[in-house]
């Protein structure tokens, strides 16, 4: 069941959640609707910050920090650099064909409604959520899990990054024209 | 000694021919085909002497597929037909020059290999594999060495390939389904299978589609005339002489015994289709402008009768069908060779451009005449024995079947004689027509000798095939 936020009797946590959710969704929308790509990027940064807020709300501080560093700090900067590199900040999209917009809206509504309907239709989770009381999200624990149980994926992620790196080099490297 | 040796010889022959180079290819191919013929005769002797010539080896475990070759009388006689016609066909091509001859002859031998395999295989899947394998060489033979406009030929040949493949794939489904029922592809297990009415119905028609297209039974014959016309004569001979017998043989070997109830249920329809083929083919043949097309339709008419014989489910029908398969094999090869002989000299297949050959080439005229007469089943020719037996079996089903099927002797005479008249008779042709060369004579005379010998003395064949046919009929009648 959906917990309809009862603002009058809402707990602080609920209010924060609602606020953050609102910010997240709004900025995400704005990021998509904004004509200027730089604005989009900035909206997106805000959105990511709000998601980091969610993480904090859920008490995973370490993740929130990493999230901010990686997304806002690295990925979005990369985006911004690229946008500026291409000098796209002034570029406005020509009018989109109606059919594109229609298709986008239709599919958005469709998938949104379908997914939400499914979750609404599903049986609600009953009873109290488990609370083991154990620490599960401190740096300490995360580090242990990551480097013990998830050692192999962790190493493998390096292969992923290595591949991406080689790939990017490959794509960007100018070839010497042999003569 | 067992039958797998023969297949090996043919396969080795195909490769040797390819590597022998263009100049030697035809001779090497002839040599191997003759060896194969000798070997099949030796096998026949061994079989008659009661030796076990079968071959049995497990091949695939899951699903269980056995490399199982069984030679009974029926298989052996079809094998003999194949191995006897192949050297003839190869030898008949000696007058022609083929580009890339090594591939050409290698493909012929490969096709012979596949066809022999089809006749010998007693495992459903193995049989199917050979069946399909036979299709590929003829596809290339017709495509690459065929005649006429390339585009048209391409169309015709591709249609042929897709069409026949389409039919046989349904047969494959049927086999797979049967396998799921019995857990074996082996023919002896399939013979024991008991299927419900509905299952028989589906499996019967799946088989029928494959065979009807291959044979061909009308209305599945639309590929035939064009392909016969466009293929090189050697290809046409292989197709009409041996390959379409694969379909007829399969009806006897696989279709009827596995689905006896359905065969009995649809007996009138099938015989009707066969006879419709006889009449339709004959009538269409009447007004063909192309000699090879005419012969194609005549072939359609004849196999219609054979098919009708196969589906009568009585011993006469079966025996007659087998006899006629053999005779038709020889005669049709002879006729197509005659067409080729004319083509070599006049460079045409248009009947309108022929005529008046008899005065120039009396020997050829006589030989051709005999083939024509054999084709219209004059008594003392091999064809008569088969046709008589088949018609008699049709009579046993219904007198009208016999009457309608018997129109073949009228209509057949009509179109064949008309053809002969237009092609051979009349005022002497202005173009020079050299009489048959020695090697052409040898081919034709050999064919004619076979036709007459078995026309007068078919008994050895009867004795060879009777046990197999009895066995098939017993299987058919196991469910009443």
């Amino acid at each position, binding site marked *: 069941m959906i917990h309809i936020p009862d603002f009058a009797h809402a707990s602080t946590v609920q209010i924060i959640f609602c606020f953050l959710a609102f910010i997240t969704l709004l900025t995400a929308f704005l990021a998509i609707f904004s004509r200027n790509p730089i604005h989009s990027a900035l909206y997106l940064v805000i959105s990511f910050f709000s998601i980091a807020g969610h993480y904090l709300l859920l008490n995973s501080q370490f993740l929130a920090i990493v999230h901010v560093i990686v997304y806002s700090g690295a990925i979005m900067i990369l985006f911004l650099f690229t946008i500026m590199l291409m000098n796209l900040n002034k570029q406005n999209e020509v009018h989109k064909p109606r059919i594109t917009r229609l298709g986008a809206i239709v599919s958005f509504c469709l*998938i949104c409604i*379908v997914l939400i309907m499914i979750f609404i*239709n599903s049986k609600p989770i009953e009873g109290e959520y488990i609370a083991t009381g154990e620490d599960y999200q401190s740096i300490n624990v995360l580090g242990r899990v990551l480097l013990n149980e998830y050692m192999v994926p962790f190493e493998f992620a390096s292969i992923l990054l290595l591949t991406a790196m080689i790939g990017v080099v490959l794509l960007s490297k100018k070839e010497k024209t042999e003569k | 000694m067992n039958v797998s040796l023969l297949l090996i010889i043919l396969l080795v022959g195909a490769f040797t021919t390819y590597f022998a180079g263009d100049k030697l290819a035809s001779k090497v191919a002839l040599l191997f085909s003759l060896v194969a013929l000798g070997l099949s005769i030796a096998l026949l002797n061994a079989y008659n002497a009661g030796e076990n010539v079968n071959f049995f080896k497990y091949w695939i475990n899951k699903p269980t597929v056995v490399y199982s070759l069984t030679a009974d009388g029926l298989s052996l006689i079809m094998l003999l037909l194949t191995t006897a016609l192949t050297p003839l066909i190869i030898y008949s091509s000696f007058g022609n020059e083929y580009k890339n001859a090594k591939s050409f002859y290698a493909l012929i031998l490969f096709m012979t290999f596949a066809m022999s395999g089809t006749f010998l295989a007693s495992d459903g899947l193995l049989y199917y594999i050979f069946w399909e394998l036979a299709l590929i060489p003829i596809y290339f033979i017709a495509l690459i060495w065929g005649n006429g406009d390339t585009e048209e030929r391409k169309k015709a040949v591709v*249609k042929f390939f897709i069409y026949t493949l389409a039919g046989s794939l349904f047969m494959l489904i049927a086999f797979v389904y049967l396998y799921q029922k019995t857990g074996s592809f082996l023919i002896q297990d399939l013979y024991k299978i008991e299927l419900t009415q509905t299952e028989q119905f589906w499996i019967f028609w799946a088989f029928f589609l494959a065979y009807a297209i291959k044979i061909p039974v009308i209305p599945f014959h639309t590929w035939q*005339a064009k392909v016969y016309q466009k293929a090189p004569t050697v290809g046409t001979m292989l197709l009409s002489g041996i390959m379409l017998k694969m379909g007829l043989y399969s009806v006897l070997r696989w279709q009827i015994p596995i689905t006896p109830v359905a065969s009995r249920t649809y007996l009138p329809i099938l015989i009707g289709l066969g006879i419709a083929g006889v009449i339709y083919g004959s009538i269409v043949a009447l007004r063909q402008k192309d000699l090879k097309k005419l012969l194609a339709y005549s072939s359609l008419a004849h196999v219609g009768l054979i098919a009708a014989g196969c589906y009568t489910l009585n011993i006469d029908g079966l025996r007659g069908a087998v006899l006629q398969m053999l005779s038709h094999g020889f005669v049709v090869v002879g006729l197509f060779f005659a067409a080729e002989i004319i083509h070599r000299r006049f460079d045409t297949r248009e009947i309108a451009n022929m005529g008046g050959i008899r005065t120039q080439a009396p020997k050829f005229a006589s030989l051709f005449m005999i083939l024509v007469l054999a084709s219209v089943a004059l008594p003392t020719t091999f064809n008569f024995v088969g046709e008589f037996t088949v018609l008699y079996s049709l*009579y*046993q089903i219904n007198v009208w079947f016999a009457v309608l099927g018997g129109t073949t002797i009228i209509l057949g005479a009509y179109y064949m004689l008309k053809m002969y008249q237009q092609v051979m*008779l009349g005022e002497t042709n202005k173009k020079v027509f050299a009489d048959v060369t020695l090697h052409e004579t040898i081919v034709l005379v050999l064919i004619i000798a076979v036709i007459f010998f078995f026309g007068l003395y*078919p008994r050895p064949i009867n004795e060879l095939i009777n046990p197999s046919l009895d066995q098939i009929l017993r299987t058919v009648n196991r469910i009443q």
Partner: protein
Amino acid sequence: MNTNLALLLLLAPFLGFLFNIFFGKQIGKSASGIIGTLTVAVSFVATVVFFLQINENKEAIEIELFNWIQISNFRVNFGFLLDQLSILWLLFVTGIGSLIHLYSISYMHDDENMHKFFAYLNLFIFFMITLVIGSNLLVLFIGWEGVGLCSYLLIGFWHKNQDYNDAAKKAFIMNRIGDLGLLIGIFIIGSLFSTLDYTTLKTAIATSSNLDITMISIAAFALFIGACGKSAQIPLYTWLPDAMAGPTPVSALIHAATMVTAGIFMITRLNYVFDLAPEVQNIIAIIGAVTSLVAATIALVQTDIKKVLAYSTVSQLGLMFLALGFGAYEIAVFHVITHAFFKACLFLGSGSVIHALHGEQDMRRMGGLKKVMGITFITFLLSSLAISGIPPFSGFFSKDEILMTAFHHNIVLWVIASLASLMTAFYMFRLLYLTFFKEFRGTEHQKSHLHESPGLITFPLIVLAILATIGGLISLPTNSWLNHYLAPLFSKEAHEAHHFGTTEYTLMAIAVLGGIIGITIAFVKYIKQNQVPAEDAEITGFSKVLYNKYYVDEIYDAVFVKSINGLSRFFRDYVETSLSAAVFGLGKVTNELSYQGKKLQTGSIGFYLFVFVLGLSAILTYLFLAQ
């Protein structure tokens, strides 16, 4: 001994055929002719030996050679049955055959392919012997088809002329229609009695208690259709006049004396079957009578000398069938024999005339040949008298027997038959007068070359004329040697010699009178009034219908040939293409689908993802919302 002799009898002409085919060209024309003739003569001698033997101990000789065709319920052997009937037939087949071979040596001497001609003639004799001496229906069928083949080859002997080839083809195909009937008959008999062997069959019928008369009748009818084809009866007679395209000796041998009587032979052979089917016998009688009349009327106005004789043959064959229809087999056989004599003589005579006129066959271009061709004329006259039924010539006896039998059975048929024989007398003498009397009407060139034929031609004529004159002796009304000779063949008590009373004598008188009337009319018309038949264009009225043979050929052409050819064209042009289109239309549709489908592949990522999302939603909806 018997086997070897029988094989000699059978194979001698075949060896002649082989020899002539392979070496005929090398050894020269005369030699090939002589070899051809000799081989037939050998057969004749062998036949005579057998005849003496049979005539002596009255026992049929049966010879089995080897197993030929195997059917589920019976086996067919290659075997011979030499009994009274077959020996009788052989006698005149080989006898007349030898004479005609002899005749041909001279007649065909100018033809470059003479060795082939003799080869074919020999082959014909071979097949005819097979037909006659076969011990079962299937061996008969070999001969039956074989003679048809030889007939085809010989009619189309001059194969450069496509009209002749057409005639040959027509003969073969019409015969084959009959052959189908014969085959069906064989099937029925085979399945009913599990044998095709004459002797076994006869015993089977004789001993069987519950015969399926309906099936037997159908079988008899089917067999009769076969006989119709071979013996040129309505409706399958039109090939015979056309068959005159062949060289004249061929017409004499095949289309008058021997092959066309095969139908009568077969019915006589299977008399025990036909006796069981009276309805079919009636049909036979009616068909015979009608054929005889129709053919006679056509013959009245024909101007081609051989066509007249051809229609005459059809007419006479009709009379024989009439006799068969009444179960009077021995009478039919008697007429076969006499007919063989006089008709062969007539054909050979006409051949002699044609030979003299360098191929001219139109009687309007003849006349006055009596003076030049004395022997030909006399033999021709004798034969004409015989065929016209003038006593004491052979034809009188045989024809009279038929008429008498007809009178006893059915008065209408008797009237028809009598009319036909009256007409016979007329057209034969019309022929005779137009050809031999008055002045020559041909070209000057022909006139200067007129000559009597050489001895090789006249000798057979003389022999045959003598036989035509005295042939009646073998079956005199009061004391018939033939009836006694053939008696063992027939299950019924042989037709005992008619009581010779007033009726019989009156009938005889009427018949003779009819003949004389016919002759007289012809005399008045062509001698007294000096008429000559009109040219083609001037023929009007009913004679035009007759001259055009009742337009039967045209009707057949329109009804059967044209329609089947039309059907063929229709099949070829429409059915084949539409069938093809129907099957391969599927391919076209798929191709078109492909073409349309390509438009979906727009290249736009948005569209691709749109479809992705649609698919995703659809699957989710189906799995989680629609359940």
